């Protein structure tokens, strides 16, 4: 006698379906970091802290593998200095490093327009499973800018 459980088709797992619009099926996926990414990882730009910063952000969750802190100094509406520290994977370090170089000396309103794609493009691409890391630098930058704006509002 067979157990009924084994004859019940509903207990079968559904067939695996490829997600629609799967980006990886369109183009050859990048499987490893390119030279630019490795350069920003081994020699990250703008690492450190800023004393008396005008804006600060702490984002990410170290328990999930990534955390970063980012400081900005603002003068006359321009980012005159930006520094970061990161606990994270090479992708997180490299994208954060590149994000800081892209906004250094840039007008705040322009810096706010920076997107993850801008950072990834400036790095010449990052492996697809590392795309989420690119969110870190840009998200931290935007959070630091809004921290600066809140502080300015409180002062005025």
């Amino acid at each position, binding site marked *: 006698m067979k157990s009924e459980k084994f004859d019940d088709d509903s207990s079968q797992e559904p067939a695996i379906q490829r997600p629609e619009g799967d980006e990886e099926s369109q183009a050859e996926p990048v499987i490893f970091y390119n030279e630019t990414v490795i350069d920003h990882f081994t020699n990250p730009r703008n690492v450190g802290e800023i004393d008396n910063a005008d804006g600060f952000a702490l984002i990410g969750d170290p328990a999930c593998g990534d955390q970063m802190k980012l400081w900005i100094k603002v003068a006359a509406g321009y980012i005159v200095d930006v520094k970061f520290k*990161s*606990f994270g994977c090479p992708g997180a*370090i490299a994208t954060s490093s590149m994000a800081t170089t892209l906004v250094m000396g840039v007008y705040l309103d322009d810096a706010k327009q920076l997107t993850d794609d801008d950072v990834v493009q400036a790095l010449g691409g990052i492996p697809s499973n590392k795309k989420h890391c690119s969110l870190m630098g840009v998200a931290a930058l935007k959070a630091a800018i809004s921290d600066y704006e809140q502080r300015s509002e409180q002062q005025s």
Partner: protein
Amino acid sequence: MLPFLEGMFGNPSSYHYLGRQVRSALQVARRAMADIFGCGPAEVVFTSGGTEANNLALRGAAGALKDTGLHIITTAVEHHSVLKTAEVLGLEGFEVTVLSVDAQGVVDAQAVIDAIRPDTILVSVMLANNETGALQPVEEIGRAARQRGVLFHTDAVQGFGKVCLNAVFEYADMVTLAAHKVYGPRGAGALLVRKGTQLVPVMTGGHHEQGLRPGTENMAAIAGFAAAAQQAQATLSSEAKRIAGLRDRFEKKLLKTIPSVSINSRGAERVPNTSSICFSGIESESVLLHLDLLGICASAGSACTTGASEPSHVLRAMGLSNLQAQSALRFSLGRSTTAGQVDMVSETLVGIIKKLRQMSSL
């Protein structure tokens, strides 16, 4: 291996002389494997590797014994080819008990034995953990299971070639092996199946491999596997001692030169070649890439989960936090490892860890 890639292309199941030639080579390989484990040639079932052998053990035993009982016991630190297979069997109506481990990564043998019930059909516990190297009390568990008439399977992929297994059938009914762990080719493995073990194939097809694994045998890989296994067996005791010495030297150096370092499963009996180390406050992939750029190969967690950002299920089961588990690296030593290399890697790590800690936001 080469003769079977260059000219001897006969199918070992064929009647003609080309087939017979390869069939006889297959017999030689099977006999060589059997001699290593003190079993009969018919008890060796060649597979495509450890994953397939683990699937065959779990699904095959479950399928053969489902009318006897539906309860399966395993541990939280098994390889995914056991854990995920057990999980799927759970969805198919089996009841799976997954036992945890202590802080050293070792399962309590008594807890496993106590978990055996009248409807238990299979106990599966690995010989040595692939991430920490911790040895599990498989002999005690296996003997108790046999006394109670319950099948015992051990995934011996990581212990094979480091632990003597010439009497493994005294306590195990099924044993998983993989060729690439003993310098054999990737894509070959075996499930040793003790005579009389109730097992059904998981694939349907021909009568190959005692009816348990249909499909034309991968003769080149099997020949390489048998040759590698024989070599590993011949040098087992001398290599184990030498490599354990190098591993201890490596760990002592790191503990002395880098602050906040902890060695996982250090208090457990371990296979000699594996060292799992937490460098607190850093993320393991960043260390891996620095090492890789210098030509030093290490792993974070297990290689199978690279790309997934989930921390090691093994280290989590040992009670490490996500953060601690993220900081773990695994170093494997082997036949070609020298004391000079061990010293070079430990010295290199000092600088890498210092650099990453300086820029850490923690």
